[in-house]
């Protein structure tokens, strides 16, 4: 079982654009995994300070999943990326 590291920027801009809700939805995956009785991998969520990616053309929130950057992250995209990563790790 692998561990997935998700870094969610919680700087001003990213928080305003919904970073905290993304963190909530990542935590909510634990419940689903329990309900589905699926072998899940551990997900570690790190709330990180502003990485100065904001303020330009691209909007936050900025989220990194195992180092892979997602811009303008949304709950659904982040959850789906984690789910598919988990599943492939468990194969």
């Amino acid at each position: 079982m692998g561990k997935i590291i998700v870094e969610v920027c919680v700087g001003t801009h990213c928080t305003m654009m919904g970073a905290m809700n993304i963190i909530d939805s990542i935590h909510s995956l634990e419940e689903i995994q329990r309900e589905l009785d699926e072998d899940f991998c551990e997900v570690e969520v790190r709330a990180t300070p502003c990485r100065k990616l904001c303020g330009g053309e691209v909007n936050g929130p900025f989220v990194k999943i195992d180092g892979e950057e997602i811009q303008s992250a949304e709950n659904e995209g982040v959850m789906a990326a984690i789910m598919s990563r988990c599943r492939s790790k468990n194969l």
Partner: protein
Amino acid sequence: MRGLFTPVTKIRRQVFTEVAKFAFERPLDGEDFAYFYESSYRIIPGEVAKYRDSVFKERAIIRERTRLAMGLDMRPVGRHKNLTDEMSRAATGEKVLNLPLINVIPFACEACPTDKFEVTDNCRKCLAHPCTTVCPVNAISMGKTAAVIDHSKCIKCNRCLNACPYHAIVRYGRPCAEACGANAIGSDELGRAEIDQEKCVSCGLCITSCPFAAIADKSEIFQLVTAIRKKEEVFAAVAPSFVGQFGPLATPGKILAGIRALGISKVIEVGWGADVGSLHEAEEFLEQVPEHRDFLGTSCCPSWAMFAEKNFPEISENIAKTHTPMVAAAKRIKKERPNAKVVFIGPCVSKKIEALNDEIRPYVDYVITFEELMGLFSAKRIELNELEEEEFESQSSRDGRNYAMAGGVADAVVNVAKSIAPEREVQVMRADTLKECRKILTLAKAGKAKGCLLEGMACPGGCVGGPGTLLQIARAEKEVKAFADTSPYMTATDNPLEGLT
């Protein structure tokens, strides 16, 4: 959609940030508002509609939201008026906010049906069709492919819905009207939501519940920033639910520093005013209840107090006349700094109405929400995490800080009462959301609240569930409690309540 970040939330916050940016960056004596012609394009770029059927409509909605965020009225839909009309009037450090505070943007409203039963695709036109059998008014018949409900007969008893083995019948209503505990939402001639201002008590729950972002309140960020830029001395009074609202790295001390970095001279805890309120209300309770008054209602939530007054006039005398914590805190500031401006920062839309009251006006200059404050931080590019922590100079007690949560107000008052009269047993009845408040007020009216302290809060979970918050309720509660426990004083009685220095 409280507690969920949706495109509705995003748009609202983008508008605040747009207005705040302009407020901070415009030439102070300038009268050029052309910036706002571009705003709607910055928020809704391109030619393809993202949220609705048309990109033009999306932008049109942004434009009305922008006016509201500047504290102005919307424009009439059927008559010409320039977007920037009256903006120069809004460009002042004085209060411009007027009624109506909460507005339905008519063309953004999708005219959702009001409480209707519908048969969905799930219907298999089964042989048994128990829906018809249980209907007491014979409103359901079997159509060609599915059951059909005759809406003119339907009495909304729910029976068919419960009887259908395929869950094919749904009842749906207007999210705004369902959220409104004051039954203030009706329809205009085009079937769109319309707020009955006589009934509305400005709790603001409709704003967060409309999935089409059709309802918005006015904001005072533009006037606040203008006052700051004009070098006025501005004090902020921050409601106890602020803890945790700005992300996990923004500790209370950093939030405080952030507010000051906006150009605000001093920040005090509204919890301090809550302590003052608890002392008054405990005294009032011990003196009056049950000999002179059946029960006493707390006074800190203006929507609850207004709701009682409008709907239960016979007993509204029993709601304490104590100032809300906001007003107590603001009075203290104005007493020592008569020329300072006071901004209340909280989760609350209701306080915006309270501050329009002639009696309160002299003390509270602006009311803004946490969400609006976030827009200011973002516009001024303040990274809370990078600031040095600061400390509140006079602190509120643990109980005062717990005012942010349902139950916290009554606890605070009871704790003071206990310290004055340990032998007295104080019974508490409490409710959050106006729907629940209606229930306890009905009981009270029937004489079933004798000797009780009644705590009412308009928002779910209390102020931590207010429409101007950013954090999910359960988490907010945890944060508030943790911060409350760091206070050197447990109850209002322990607080020396020192003045400003």
